[in-house]
């Protein structure tokens, strides 16, 4: 069973006046089949955690460990992490002009699966996955994220989640910028993947709204670069009622 273990993770970024520490000792274990919601105010370091796990070059790990089934994730390049089973659905997916969605998906699936999927089965697989996410078939011929609306970008991220079937899925603010219909569609996609029991999900969000559609097993409050409190789904209800105030003032240095 795939397990992602984060232990005492410290991460810095280069700022104008030298490196600035953003993550200050994160401890978290995500097992296959579990869903963890990471909630916290803006600037608390949630997205830094997501991008650090995926290996974005902007972030420097200064301490701690991340392992996936005992393998050192921090030693892996970005593409190796993806092939090992770590998937990051991005808050701001990047435009790649000249590369069609269908070409991109197939290249990616080939890399992740270690062999090119059989064309006929693949076409069917993509078509069905797109239908489930209410995506127009012509979408496959557009260039990756080029001219996509906010909702289309997020659907496209979840389409990849469904096709690539990672062991660990990190969803970075997948709910941001979505209207209620799109939020429901995207959440249904995430739930289909979760229901397979094959994925451990790390759901990063600012709002509790998405948790009405995706029920977490664990909720963690992120503040000042580390996990300030952990609990069950009821913790989200508390945050809904009280906000992050208790974590941001005074308590932040605790």
């Amino acid at each position: 069973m795939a397990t992602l273990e984060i232990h005492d993770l410290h991460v810095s970024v280069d700022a104008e006046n030298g490196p600035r520490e953003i993550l200050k000792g994160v401890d978290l274990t995500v097992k296959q089949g579990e869903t963890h919601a990471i909630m916290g105010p803006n600037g608390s370091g949630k997205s830094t955690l997501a991008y650090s796990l995926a290996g974005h070059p902007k972030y420097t790990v200064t301490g701690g460990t991340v392992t996936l089934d005992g393998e050192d994730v921090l030693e892996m390049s970005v593409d190796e992490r993806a092939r090992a089973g770590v998937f990051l659905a991005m808050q701001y997916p990047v435009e790649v002009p000249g590369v069609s969605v269908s070409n991109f998906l197939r290249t990616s699936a080939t890399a992740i699966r270690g062999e090119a999927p059989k064309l006929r089965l693949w076409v069917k697989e993509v078509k069905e996955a797109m239908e489930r996410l209410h995506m127009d078939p012509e979408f496959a011929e557009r260039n990756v994220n080029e001219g996509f609306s906010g909702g289309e970008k997020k659907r496209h991220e979840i389409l990849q989640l469904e096709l690539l079937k990672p062991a660990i899925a990190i969803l970075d603010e997948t709910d941001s910028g979505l209207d209620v219909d799109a939020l429901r569609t995207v959440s249904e996609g995430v739930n289909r993947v979760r229901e397979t029991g094959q994925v451990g999900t790390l759901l990063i969000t600012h709002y509790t709204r998405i948790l009405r559609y995706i029920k977490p097993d664990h909720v963690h409050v992120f503040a000042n670069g580390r996990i300030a409190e952990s609990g069950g789904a009821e913790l989200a209800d508390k945050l809904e009622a009280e906000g992050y105030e208790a974590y941001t003032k005074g308590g932040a240095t605790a």
Partner: protein
Amino acid sequence: MAEAQNIPAGSTTTGSIAVAAESTVATRMSAPPSYDVADFPVPHGREEEWRFTPLARLRGLHDGSAVAGGADLKIDITAPEGVTHELVDREDPRVGKAGKPVDRVAAQAYSNFEKASVVTVPKETVLTEPIRITVHGAGGTAFGHQVVELGAFAEAVVVIDHTGDALLAANVDYLLGDGAKLTVVSVQDWDDNAVHVGQHNALVGRDATFKSVVVTFGGDLVRLHPRVTYAGPGGEAELYGLYFTEQGQHQEHRLFVDHEATNCRSNVVYKGALQGQDAHAVWIGDVLIQASATGTDTYELNRNLVLTDGARVDSVPNLEIETGEIVGAGHASATGRFDDEQLFYLMARGIPADEARRLVVRGFFAELVQQIGLPDVEERLMSKIEAELEASAA
């Protein structure tokens, strides 16, 4: 992130659309067109038409010090039945008919070549196989002149391949009779030291269709000057170009479409990818719509993809319009960068860095190659791009 893509990396894009009675396109040249090299002053590098070109690397083509000799340039012409091929003197009326040299090196080529090669497709002859011209250099210096003439309603595809090493100044004339259809693919696949400068003149007959595909991969310095004029109304010109400029290479494409006849159409699409220190691509797109050229429809587009730091693009579209009675006129130029965010995104989906770069470049060129409309040429170009990408990754 996304918004960073259109920040040009070491590039300039200074286009202009002039609506004026005075032709700036013509007056920007330092001397009027002429067949005689003596009519052109030796360029010093600050002239409008030379300001992007590293003159020293022309190895004397621009100042008369380059002398023909050394290893021969080997030229082979394979043509289907019905096509004639001959060597003629410069007095032959077909030689130079498509256009006068507009700069000193083109005039030097015209003044220095010994015999011009003329390939003729008789009127109403429709070829099913391409005419192939291979030019292979073995390190010598050469001046040349090639004419391709299509009679009225003839149809042909010509593929010109340049390989090996040479210091070459050579012009090519395309003469299209009324209603003729000519597609030319000129591939510059030179070795690293080659220098190739030339002017390509197309004279497009009434209702004739000229399609040019210029593909530049190799060479130390390649500077080509494709030009189109229309001999009568209703002509069409599609000018496609594709270049892959690598470390230290200078690849310059200077286009000029002169709309004088009525109801003619021109469409220019040039795309280039650059990588490596001091890779330098220059694209100049001049279009002139003369007062007489009513019903003109023209568009020119240049796109560049900068893959690494240290590369430079200069892209200058110029459109000059002397009549308002046209169908359309426009231009666009953009230089984008394959940036770290795109690379990260593709790698985060399991795609290794080299393959990610290939995917982007392949996609970038495929959009253009698909417009060529000749399946075997398209296939060959894509596999050539593939090989170029493999070589650059190694």
